[in-house]
C-alpha cells in the first residue's frame, strides 16, 4: 500500500491503521484497504474441538459470533471456488479488494450476517438472512447460489466478496477474513469492507438486553475461540421465499 492509501485507511474512520508489513505477512485475503483486524479466534464446535476446513458440509449455512459476541457471521463452503481479486466499493465510494475464498478449493467464505440495508440478521427465532443453495429458487433469486436477505430482498454474490446483485443494499457485505493453519484448523482474524456494527449495536440495544443480559456484553470482543453451529440448529426457522 502506498502512503496515501494508508492514510485513507486511517481517515476512513471505519478502519484502524495497521502496518502494511503485518498484512502481507499474515493475511492473504485483502490488501489492507478497508480492513480491520480483531482478535484472532479459533473456530470450534460445541465441544470446543477445532473445526477443520475440509469437514464443512458443502453449501451449508454455519453461524458463529465475530468479531463481537453479538455480531453473527455466516460461514459457507460454496463447493466451488470464488472469484479472485474482486474490486469492490463501499457506499462512500471507498474501494477495496476481495482476494478470494480460502480452503483447498478457495471455496470457503464468511460474511458478517448483518444486512447492509436495514440490519436484519439471524436470531434464535428466525433467520431472514442466509445462503441459498444453487438451484434453489426464491422470489429474489431464480437460481440460488446467493446470500439473501428476505426482509427487503437484498441479494449478494458470495463468490464476488458479497457484492450486491439486486435489492436495496447500498454496499457489499462485510467479509470476515479467515485463516487456515497447517492442521486445517480455521481462524477468524479480521473484517474486510464496511461494516454496520455501530448502527447495529445502537438499533438492537433492547434486544441485546434480553439475549445477552446487557447491551455491553453483546459488544465485547470475542476472545480465543468462537463456537460454530449449523444455522438450521441455531435458528428455529430459516426464511426464504
Amino acid at each position, binding site marked *: 500500500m502506498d502512503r496515501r492509501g494508508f492514510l485513507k485507511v486511517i481517515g476512513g474512520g471505519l478502519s484502524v491503521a495497521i502496518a502494511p508489513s503485518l498484512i502481507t505477512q499474515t493475511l492473504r485475503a485483502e490488501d489492507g484497504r478497508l480492513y480491520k483486524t480483531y482478535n484472532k479466534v479459533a473456530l470450534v464446535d460445541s465441544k470446543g474441538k477445532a473445526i477443520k476446513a475440509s469437514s464443512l458440509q458443502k453449501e451449508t449455512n454455519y453461524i458463529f459470533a465475530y468479531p463481537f459476541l453479538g455480531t453473527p457471521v455466516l460461514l459457507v463452503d460454496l463447493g466451488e471456488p470464488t472469484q479472485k481479486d474482486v474490486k469492490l466499493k463501499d457506499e462512500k465510494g471507498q474501494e477495496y479488494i476481495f482476494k478470494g475464498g480460502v480452503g483447498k478449493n478457495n471455496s470457503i467464505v464468511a460474511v458478517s450476517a448483518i444486512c447492509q440495508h436495514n440490519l436484519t440478521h439471524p436470531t434464535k427465532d428466525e433467520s431472514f438472512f442466509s445462503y441459498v443453495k444453487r438451484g434453489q429458487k426464491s422470489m429474489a433469486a431464480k437460481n440460488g447460489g446467493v446470500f439473501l436477505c428476505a426482509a427487503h430482498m437484498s441479494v449478494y454474490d458470495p463468490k464476488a466478496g458479497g457484492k450486491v446483485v439486486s435489492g436495496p443494499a447500498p454496499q457489499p457485505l462485510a467479509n470476515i477474513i479467515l485463516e487456515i493453519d497447517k492442521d486445517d484448523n480455521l481462524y477468524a482474524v479480521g473484517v474486510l469492507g464496511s461494516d454496520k456494527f455501530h448502527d447495529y449495536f445502537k*438499533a438492537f440495544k433492547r434486544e441485546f438486553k434480553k439475549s445477552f443480559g446487557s447491551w455491553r456484553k453483546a459488544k465485547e470482543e470475542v476472545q480465543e475461540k468462537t463456537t460454530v453451529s449449523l444455522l438450521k440448529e441455531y435458528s428455529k426457522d430459516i426464511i426464504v421465499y
Partner: protein
Amino acid sequence: MKRRELFKLAAAAALTSATANAAEKKKSKESKSSFNFALLPKNGKGKRVVIIGGGWAGLSVAKRLKEYSPNSDVVLIEQRAHFVSCPISNLWLVDAVDLEFLTHSYLDAARNNGYTFFQAAAYNIDRKNKVVLTTNGDVKYDYLVVATGIDYDYSQWTKGDIELEYELRTNYPPGFMTHSEHQVIKEKLEDFEEGNFILTVPGGNYRCLPAPYERACVIADYFKKNKIKGKVILLDENPDITIKKKGFHSAFNELYKDYIQYVPSAKIEKFDLKNKKVETEIGDVYEFADAAFYPRVRGSKLLEIAGIAKDGINKKEANIDPFTYQVKDDPNIFCCGDVRPMAFSKSGNTANSEGYVVARIIANLIEGKKPTWKSPHTTCYSAVSTDPIRAISVDADYKWDKTNKVFTFANVKLNEKWQGKMGLHTGKGLLEWAKGMYRDMFD
C-alpha cells in the same frame, strides 16, 4: 449602576427597538410580507433544506440528506407529535400487533440522524422569498421538499355536499390517513354484532393498492374466528383486483367463501346513511350494519394552496418533472412520496426509496453536479390471515415507456402463494419488512 446610566440605557434600548421596527416595516413593505421567523438552530453550515411532511418519504429524505450532504442544514416540519404507521395498521385492527409496533418518535429520528425536527403545520409557501409559513413561525429555505402525502377526494361521491362528506369522514372513516381513523375502524369491529361490513376500493391511483383487499381478509378472518355472523362486502370501482390478483382471489375463495362478497366494477352512486344503504351506478343496493368508505385520493391541500398542484390521474398532485422531482417553474422545490403524479404504487416502500433518490438529487445540486434518476422500488407484503400471519408479496421497479410517456412496472416478482410454508414465511417477512423500514426512518 447609577440611576442616570440606567435611564440612558433604557432610552438607548427604546431607540434601537424603534429603529429596528422602522427597518422591519420598510423591509416588509418591500417584500409585501412580514415574516415571523421560528428560532431554529443550524445543524450544518451549508444550504438549508426544509422538508414538509414527516411521513415515509420525508423521513427518508431528511436522514439521507444528512448522510449525503452532512453540511446542509436540514429541518423536518411535521404537524403530528408522533408517527403512527399506516402499513401494518390492518393487523393492528385485529390485535395481531400492538400499538407500540406502529408508533415511533420524531425526536428519536432527529437525534439519531442529526437534523432538526420542527413540529408545526405548514399553511403556505412564500415561493418568492423562499419561506415556509407555519403555525409555529416561518422557516426560510434554500431547497424545499414537499412530502405531505394525500388528502381524500370525496367529490365523485358527494358532488359538493359538505354535510355528506363530513358524515362519511366522521362516521365511516376510510382509514387511509390517520391513526384516529384506524381507531374508529377497530372499535367498529369490536362492537360488531351481525350483518354486512362494507369496504370500498376507489378508482384512480389510490394509496396502497393491496390494502383494501388485505383489510377485507383480516376483517373476514376476525369474523370467522370470533364466530360473528358478519360478511365483508367489498365494492371495487375497478374491474378486478388491482394487484396480487391471484393471491387475493384464492384467499377470498378458499378461506373466506362465506365471509367476503367481492363485487368488481361497483361504483357507489348514492348514499342513504340514515337507512344504512348504498346504491351503485348500475342500481344494485347494498345494506350495511357498518362500513369504512374509502374515496378517491388527491394530493394534499398544501400543494394546491402553494400553487404547485396539477390535475392528472388524481386531482391536485405535484406539478413536477418526473425525473428530477423539481416543481416545473420552481426548481428549488421538490415533491416526492404519495404527492407525486407519476403512476407509481402509492406505498411506503416506494416513498422511502424515493427519499434516497431525491436526497441524492439535492446533494448533487448542492455540489454543483447533475441530478441522476434512479427508479424507486416497491416491495409490498399483504397479509391474508392472522394467527398465524400468512402473506403474499410483490417486488418491482419502474421503467420509462418512451412511446406512451408513462412509467410502467419493471422486474416484477410476484409471490402469491399464501398456502403452506411459503405463506407463513412471507407472513414473517411482512413484520420484518416493517421493522427494517422503521429502523431505516428512526434509528
